[in-house]
């Protein structure tokens, strides 16, 4: 089912939280809504599922205009960050609830619940109460409950935020697997870039109530439309150098570091103020150009090591390299920089 938001605007007591947003979620895709806290992700979700009334605009499910329908009539499944399981009901009853209020036959309910429980691997837990489940299991129950009535669209509001690191990893693939198996249209709200990138077909990055870029994860990582998006994706984060184009194809940072520009942007006019985005993997691994600096911080992470390198007064690049090639704290280094991959933005942060 395709979901369409047209000119969606939402105000809380005069404060406009989302202003005239247009968003299409394609049939069967998993779209991640990624953005910093407070940018309006949940608000968008609540508008789609009919918990909030929207102030203007339309919401279409397929061809159907659901703008003024209450939640009960929209057939959306939502998984909340806190799972919102009904604590007094067993897992079975939790999952059965949407069917029960729709007055399904007991036999049908039983069948459907067991089917979805199998899909979400919680078959053996059906008799338990939510309090007796681990976080990951609760998560699965919430998912099962949202899916059991075959909703037109599945909305996930930071479904993994409450899980610990390991479980989060596990549930990521789990949720994705289920979404793929059921082929349901899904919207995933998150502020975790890894989550967004690893789980979704497309990512919509939001900032301050507007959508900044919609693209596939890969495209967004490699071709962010602005510095905000670039900074949002990538861990350790991208480092920026501000400076100007000095001569055709060369850049000089404020701190005086000179770096050749990638070929595709060789034509930038001299004197133009730009910013260079340098992801940690661009620096210290391979590349033609060598950049000198001093290691200001080393962090071992088992398989990899992460360095902060000061390349000039107040200018810091990050580098991530396989474990083993140990440079010590304070050591002066000269590492390769993969200049072709550099991301270039104008002074307003828009990608060039």
């Amino acid at each position: 089912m395709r979901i369409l938001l047209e000119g969606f605007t939402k105000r809380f007591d005069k404060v406009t939280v989302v202003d005239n947003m247009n968003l299409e979620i394609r049939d069967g895709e998993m779209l991640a809504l990624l953005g910093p806290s407070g940018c309006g992700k949940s608000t968008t979700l609540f508008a789609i599922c009919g918990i909030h009334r929207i102030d203007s605009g339309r919401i279409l499910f397929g061809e159907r205009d659901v703008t003024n329908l209450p939640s009960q009539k929209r057939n959306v499944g939502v998984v909340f960050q806190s799972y919102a399981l009904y604590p007094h009901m067993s897992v079975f009853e939790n999952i059965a609830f949407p069917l029960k209020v729709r007055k399904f036959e007991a036999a049908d309910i039983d069948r459907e619940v067991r089917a979805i429980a199998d899909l979400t691997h919680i078959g053996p837990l059906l008799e338990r109460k939510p309090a007796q489940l681990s976080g990951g299991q609760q998560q699965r129950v919430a998912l099962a409950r949202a899916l059991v009535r075959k909703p037109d669209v599945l909305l996930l509001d930071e479904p993994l935020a409450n899980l610990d690191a390991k479980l989060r990893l596990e549930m990521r693939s789990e949720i994705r697997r289920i979404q793929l198996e059921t082929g349901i249209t899904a919207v995933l709200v998150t502020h975790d870039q890894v989550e967004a990138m690893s789980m979704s077909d497309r990512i919509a990055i939001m900032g301050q109530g507007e959508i900044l870029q919609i693209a596939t994860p890969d495209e967004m990582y490699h071709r962010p439309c602005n510095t905000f998006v670039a900074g949002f994706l990538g861990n350790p984060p991208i480092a920026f150098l501000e400076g100007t184009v000095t001569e055709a194809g060369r850049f000089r940072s404020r701190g005086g570091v000179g770096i050749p520009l990638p070929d595709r942007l060789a034509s930038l006019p001299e004197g133009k103020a730009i910013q260079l985005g340098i992801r940690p993997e661009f620096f210290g691994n391979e590349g033609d150009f060598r950049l000198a600096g001093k290691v200001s911080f080393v962090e071992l992470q088992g398989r990899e090591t992460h360095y902060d390198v000061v390349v000039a007064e107040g200018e810091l690049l990050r580098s991530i390299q396989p474990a083993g090639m140990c440079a010590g704290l304070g050591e002066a280094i000269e590492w390769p920089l993969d200049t072709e991959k550099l991301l270039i933005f104008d002074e307003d942060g828009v990608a060039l």
Partner: protein
Amino acid sequence: MTRNFPVWPVLLILLVISLPLVIMYGYLALGTVTTTEPGELLPSGVTLENWRFLFDSSTAAGNIWAATFNTFVFAGSITLIVLTVSATGGYAVSRLNLPFRRFFLASILVMHAFPSVTLIIGVFLVLQFTGLYDTMIGVIAVKASLMLPFGIWIMKGFYDTVPWEIEMAGVQDGASRLTVWWRLLLPQVRPGLVALGLFAFLDGWGEYVLPRILAPTNDFRVLSIVLDLVGNPDRANYDFNLFKTVGVFYTLPVLVIFAFFQHRLMDIFGGGTKG
């Protein structure tokens, strides 16, 4: 928590300030099985005579079982009304869009301040207009209504603590708001309902002034009236120990409830105040 402090000075102070209560309740209990006269420090003469009223309706206490039953019905009805109305009203006020919601809430809070018994002449007139004067139904309705502001406020507090997500999930799942309330919210505020129910019951059980004033001749005698009767020193056959015994009998169910549900009772302000 570490226990690296001397316990006994604290215990001692606690004991000292609790002493009046310990003594009063101790002697109250003793008085029921002894012939101690008022003013004697040491109890004397063990007897079960004081408890004869349980089987013998010819004592000053009359038919105690009927009165006990009545009291149960009385307190039970009050509890029922307070619970139902507070459970519905509290929900509406906490969660639903109502005109003048703030005003209503503020008034409920203000109603705490009413010296309710001094409204009794007004209440009397209302009962008379409605034909409920001198009926137990009238007293029950009045008593329950007087408890309502408290009840609604407490329940509202409890509803407030239920995460909105539960309700949102319910609505998503296709349930109507009424179903959501009944199937999802009510079970969540059970501790509140239990605590409020207990409070209402205890309050109804101990009520004394209202039945006395608003249903003076009703055959539906509750225990507080019986106790008052037994405790009237102007009677020729006034017996202090009988009074105490009836008093203990009267308090006993409350004590039992209390002993079992102490922690539930402690919950009463679970949703109420901010910390």
